[in-house]
């Protein structure tokens, strides 16, 4: 592509594809100062996510993209998002076999010699950005908190590294980053969603199994999805007010 066309597109084309906040944000991003992207008002948003299990193919793109976008440690014990593979023996449906080799980062190897009578599927996991987060409740110093737009974040400058929040999370979504000795977790790509972009995991998901949604934006397709599908959150008995809704969630999933 020649330079002039590129220039032209940067001007005109953008207006066609990017709208509103995203467009303004994009200017700042292109200028290498994305943190200055304006036009984002926290109280106008309320973020959540939909995971469509019936679309997940366990490719691991989300896991890889998340680690790259957020600089997560590349070992097999630190994940902001990971994918589990469930194998449910229909003769013993309460005790599924689950694996997540390297959190699904490398995809999943073949299932060796499985009985006929099974059902099997993938379940992507991430922070549920709960409304009544147990992790926020137990943090002794206010280092982890709910942002006004419904994202559970960590203040690395104040975190003591006491790990109480790690114990309190029912979903195993938190870990200590040994590089900072503070807790780390999914930020719902806060640096992206506040600039009109979607999360890294949603960006790369090839099947649309993950959908970021702004629950305060009436035009967001998430409302239509939640209205037309039977969704469930993980461990509803924990009453955490999870905002990660699963479509097609099997009862065996923990």
């Amino acid at each position, binding site marked *: 592509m020649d330079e002039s066309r590129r220039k032209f597109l940067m001007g005109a084309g953008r207006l066609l594809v990017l709208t509103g906040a995203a467009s303004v944000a994009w200017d700042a*991003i292109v200028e290498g100062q994305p943190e200055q992207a304006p036009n984002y008002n926290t109280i106008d948003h309320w973020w959540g996510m939909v995971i469509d299990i019936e679309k997940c193919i366990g490719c691991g793109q989300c896991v890889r993209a998340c680690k790259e976008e957020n600089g997560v440690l590349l070992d097999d014990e630190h994940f902001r998002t990971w994918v589990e593979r469930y194998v449910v023996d229909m003769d013993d449906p309460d005790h599924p076999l689950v694996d997540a080799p390297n959190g699904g980062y490398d995809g999943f190897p073949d299932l060796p010699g499985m009985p006929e009578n099974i059902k099997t599927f993938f379940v992507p996991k991430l922070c549920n950005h709960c409304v009544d987060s147990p992790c926020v409740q137990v943090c002794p110093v206010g280092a982890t908190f709910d942002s006004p737009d419904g994202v559970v974040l960590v203040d690395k400058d104040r975190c003591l590294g006491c790990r109480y929040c790690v114990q309190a999370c029912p979903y195993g979504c938190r870990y200590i980053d040994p590089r900072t000795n503070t807790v780390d977790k999914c930020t719902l790509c806060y640096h992206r969603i506040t*600039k009109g972009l979607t999360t890294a995991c949603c960006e790369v998901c090839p099947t649309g199994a993950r959908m970021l949604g702004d629950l305060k934006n009436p035009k967001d397709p998430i409302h239509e999805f939640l209205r037309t599908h039977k969704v469930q959150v993980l461990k509803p008995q924990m009453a955490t007010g999870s905002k990660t809704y699963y479509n097609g969630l099997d009862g065996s999933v923990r």
Partner: protein
Amino acid sequence: MGSRWHNYSHLIRMAALFVAGILIFLVGRSFFVPADFGVYWHYRAGALDDARARPIRFAGQAACVECHSDISDLRKTARHAKVSCESCHGALATHAAGDEPLKPTRPNGKALCVGCHTKSPSKPVAFPQIDVADHAGDNACIECHNPHAPKIS
């Protein structure tokens, strides 16, 4: 101090020590608590900006389409229409911003395709899956399929 209070003087001094301790604590507190703590709720308001400050690695579909509309036109009606560019081509924010190696590396063809399309009982039945050895042998996928419009016409 009256004689009656004389017998309390050690207790009064101890109480003064406690009061002094509390005062020192309050003064220390005013020094150590960041000014923007508690502006919204029980946290440091600046932490929101910290979380936003992280550089972006994946440019996002809109940025790709801005320049590469030819490819996006080709994909528009194809099976891969909804697969984002960076899903296969990797994180390209620096490429999109124009201040890094302008030419992104070519995706590792077959491994990439197989990553999604290998047959697995765990995948949704409707998703196109193949037994790789049976389907293509040693041939590269792109010998038959255009990854931007994979359906063979």
